[in-house]
């Protein structure tokens, strides 16, 4: 069990960090709107792009991120009369590296989206105006969690994407050169290596956030 504010990192040596933050949404009616703050946040989330066009795809080292509104807790199987005091914006992110640099990277790369998403959360508008204050804000909202997204190892995202890219391309290479003569194979492999640039992480690779092979391959 990891203590509050500690995030999830199992085992200790791992570079895989699991962040969970619950940010209270203001109660009441949004000014100039006929709806609650919560409804406005919900609308904002619904309007965000996903997969390779998600703003989170531009945040370095994000393995998997989730944003949703937590309206009330309910327990499966047991009946327990416990309700949340407020409505929360749930922000969960599994990423490579340390919390603070990660959050700074988030502010640096998608500040306008961060402002848009969090603007109706309690104390956000009055306290967050820089990368450092965003880090502080999220750390205040952080809750302990023990569950990590399990679909990824703990390498930096760029390495993982390159690895997946190479695996797929090499598979294609092998499949399409079955039965080739040694000479054909040698020259085909040289041009293959030239094309995929094995050691170049920012070279040909997959796009962050892509959900299908087609979208992963159209690297911009």
């Amino acid at each position, binding site marked *: 069990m990891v203590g509050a504010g500690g995030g999830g990192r199992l085992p200790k040596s791992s570079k895989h960090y699991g962040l969970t933050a619950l940010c209270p949404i203001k109660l009441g009616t949004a000014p100039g709107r006929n709806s609650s703050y919560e409804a406005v946040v919900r609308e904002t989330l619904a309007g965000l792009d996903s997969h390779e066009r998600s703003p989170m795809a531009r945040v370095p080292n994000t393995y998997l991120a989730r944003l949703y509104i937590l309206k009330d807790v309910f327990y*499966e199987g047991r009946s327990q009369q416990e309700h949340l005091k407020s409505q929360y914006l749930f922000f969960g992110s599994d990423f490579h590296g340390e919390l603070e640099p990660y959050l700074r990277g988030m502010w640096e790369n998608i500040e306008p989206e961060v402002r848009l998403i969090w603007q109706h959360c309690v104390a956000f508008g009055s306290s967050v105006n820089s990368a450092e204050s965003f880090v502080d804000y999220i750390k205040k909202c952080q809750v302990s969690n023990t569950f990590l997204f399990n679909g990824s190892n703990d390498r930096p995202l760029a390495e993982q994407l390159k690895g997946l890219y190479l*695996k*797929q391309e090499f598979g*294609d290479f*092998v*499949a399409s050169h079955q039965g080739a003569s040694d000479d054909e194979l040698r020259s085909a492999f040289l041009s293959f290596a030239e094309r995929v640039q094995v050691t170049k992480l920012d070279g040909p690779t997959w796009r962050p956030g892509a959900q299908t092979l087609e979208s992963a391959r159209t690297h911009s």
Partner: protein
Amino acid sequence: MTTFEIRSGVDLHDVQGNIIKGYGRYGFPVARYVTYRINAAVAGRTFIKLLVPMLTTSVPWSESGVVEEGTKQPPSTTNVALTYEGLRRLGVPERSLLSFPDEFVMGMRARASILGDVGASAPKNWDPVWQTEDGQQPVHLLVTINAESSDALAQRYEEVGLAARAANDVAGDSAGVQQLAGHRSAGGADAAFQDGAALRDEHGTPGPKEHFGYTDGISDPYYKDSGSRSSNVIGGGKRLRDSSPATDAGWAPLATGELLLGHTDEALEYPAAPVPSTLSKNGTYLVYRKLHQNVATFDRYAASEAAKLSMEENLFRAKLVGRWPNGAPLASFPTEAEANAFNAKLEQAKADRFDETATPTQRAAATERHLELKEQQSGFDYREDIAGESCPVGAHSRRANPRGSLEFGQDHAFSTPGALVNRRRIARRGLPYGDSSDRSVDNGDHGIIFMAIGASINRQFEFVQQQWMNFGNDFRLGNDQDALLASWPDEDIDPLRARMTFEVDPDGMEVPKICTGIPQFVETRGGDYFFVPSLTALSAIARGAVDPT
């Protein structure tokens, strides 16, 4: 009270028979699946009330169970299942309805993208009976009948029809329960029911083949307290460490709660289940999927790709599935000669077992031999074949049940070798339908009525379909799909994406063979998610007495 109830811990009288028994194995070669819409709750409830006494339970039949005191095997069996919309229309209270799992509430059509039901398999191409105008599930109640003969089938079908009519009379509404036609068949797209039937061999004897030519229905999960023969644990149970997969010491029964609600499961918990427990206990879920098989394309591809890869066609076919067409597992019988020799022994033992001219002693000995050989058909795993040189890692049956091989040879990677598998087992209870004797066309009426039973559709069937059939990551096979079931959106298939690798000894000099350009062999033609209530629950539903408070 009979002995097996005391011994078994499950009241098998309360559990519908299709859950535990693969009827096909018990000499019921024909089946009929009848779909109903419920327009009036009273009629629906009365129908169920009239069906309950006709239902077949899981009580063992005297010939095949562990128990001395089974019931006599009937000439036909009858079972009933309900969709979410069916439960709602029968007046099951809101609070109970809300306690069903999401995937069941949504129904199979709404899960199309998860299941890979795209392109030719997309819901818009399903049989008319599964089409919906209002977005609601069209089918509310499913009656499944299995029978030893066409006559017995027709008779039971007639009796079920009479019950529906009687229910409508009681309700004073001639369409209170309405049989829904619209199943595609050889005669068109409007059959009043879906028929299924074991395929027959050249002598007209029904057998275990499916339309691609493989022996099917061999592997069957074995659950604690299911009342079936204890040696079925071999290959059917969960794999234990440090013991041979060929003996019963190598396996333990799966927890009952993997199959039935109201019993503890492999996590030592009661599976999440609808309230009240009288509604859920001893019930389970049924996935009904009509899967069309493109037999001409399959035959053509097998011949041409085997030639391209310089392989015997039979070996090629075996590599796709993980079993030779005659049923012998590749993992234990890597060459065709071994597989054929094994199968000849199996067939001989079976013939001797049922040879009426033999003495009782001879037949008893043959029975013993037959059962032992059947254990060999199931009692294997992939521990000696981690790389997949005998049975490819991506072979259909290895994907469907990796039998502990997800440790990838790293013993003790998990607390038990089955850690990633034991909660993903599914009991298959379907039968083929139609006739594929004309192998030159794809668009005849032939396929499988695939039925999967288990305590969680999402955790078991949907996971296997989405993660293990339509994706390869868990097997370190990247995006490769199962060759048999792969489905593709309408766009042209990238031939390199539609591929499967036949691995070789990683330390040897041989080169792996990769088949490419695999066309779509199987297309979904309809189906839905059903709840299979216990007899107690059905009676409560019929009385309008489900009380979740």
